């Protein structure tokens, strides 16, 4: 897995993430995933990662830019490790997939 350039890795919303049930209270999202019968508790950042991938695949970098914009943060303000952790966690839960490096992804989105 191309660990040398994490920002250049691309992610896509997994099938399991298309049928989530969302319940938002304050800044906490309680989400039901029917494919696994799990209930997740996500903060706003994690929820925004899922939202930003709804339109199509994105590079990690592009996803991060969108989340920062939505949160009203300056570019680069999100802690790198936290963001990488959220991506890895979403991948582990089967909500996003890492695309194989060969798949073409539009950088401009």
């Amino acid at each position, binding site marked *: 897995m191309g660990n040398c350039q994490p920002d250049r890795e691309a992610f896509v919303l997994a099938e399991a993430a298309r049928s989530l*049930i969302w*319940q938002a*209270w304050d800044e*906490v999202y*309680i989400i*039901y995933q*029917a494919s696994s*019968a799990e*209930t997740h508790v996500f903060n706003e950042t994690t929820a925004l990662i899922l939202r930003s991938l709804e339109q199509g695949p994105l590079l990690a970098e592009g996803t991060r830019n969108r989340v920062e914009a939505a949160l009203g943060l300056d570019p680069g303000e999100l802690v790198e490790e936290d963001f990488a952790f959220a991506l890895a966690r979403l991948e582990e839960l089967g909500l996003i997939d890492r695309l194989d490096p060969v798949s073409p992804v539009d950088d401009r989105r």
Partner: protein
Amino acid sequence: MIVGDLGRGEFDKRLAGPGLRVRFGPFNIRIGSPLDAFAGVAHQLYAPYPLVEENALIDFHVRIASPRGLRRWVRRQACFSLDGQSPFAPYTIEHAFPAVEWGINWCIATRAHHLLMLHSAVVERDGLAMLFPASPGDGKSTLCTALVHSGWRLLSDEFGLIRPEDGLLLPLPRLIPLKNESIEVIRRFRPEALIGPAFYNTRKGTVAHVRPPVDSVQRAAETARPRWFVFPRWIAHSPLDLQPMSKSQAFLMVASNAFNYEVLDETAYRLVAQMVAQSDCYSLCYSDLDEALAALDELSRSSRDE
């Protein structure tokens, strides 16, 4: 007909023979036992509960009896069985009664997956229910006993049973097991409460069972709508503190304390989300029962007037 209509002779004969068929809320139970240690306590504490009608189905067939074989000669023991199988290690014979009470709860918690089962005490007034989801040791039984002897109706001390079809709470007004210091607290607080004998050195310390007020047992078919979630904690010498709680936190505490949230998948998620959304949620710290009751009364009156 209720259990109390049976004389002690007939009661013992049924227990030792075909079994006592008794109704606890939505469940019909058949209890068999040849043990005096069980029959004496059961005859007193089960008195207000209805007997199961002739043609109705029994949900759980339980039995408490001495085990066969060598062990019975070594130490007198009682073995709880469900449908002829014994899921638990034997108890000493003196603890036969708490063993059956506990065993029936276990049957319900592990089998009644047609309902969502929250781990919660539930009381009701004017058709609206107040739930106290809590881990053991937080004083939920003490508070619940105090409330049901102060104008609230008992739905259950242990189970918030929710019918998925309409989200209403089903009563399961079983005996309330008080532990250790709580027994004395309730004796002083409500001397009129009917409390069974104390069982010492059980796996949970000293246990004594409160028989719910007869009205709660008689109205076991009247459902209630969830209206308040209160998460209680008894802390010695603490001043009364009733604080609103965020819905997301309430959701997590309710879901993680349920018996079968995981089993019911999306149904459980939707039911809990809906209950939490339509209820007011609070945390309660208290040391004085009178103060706690007054605060909860006030809460129920003010939110009803809204």
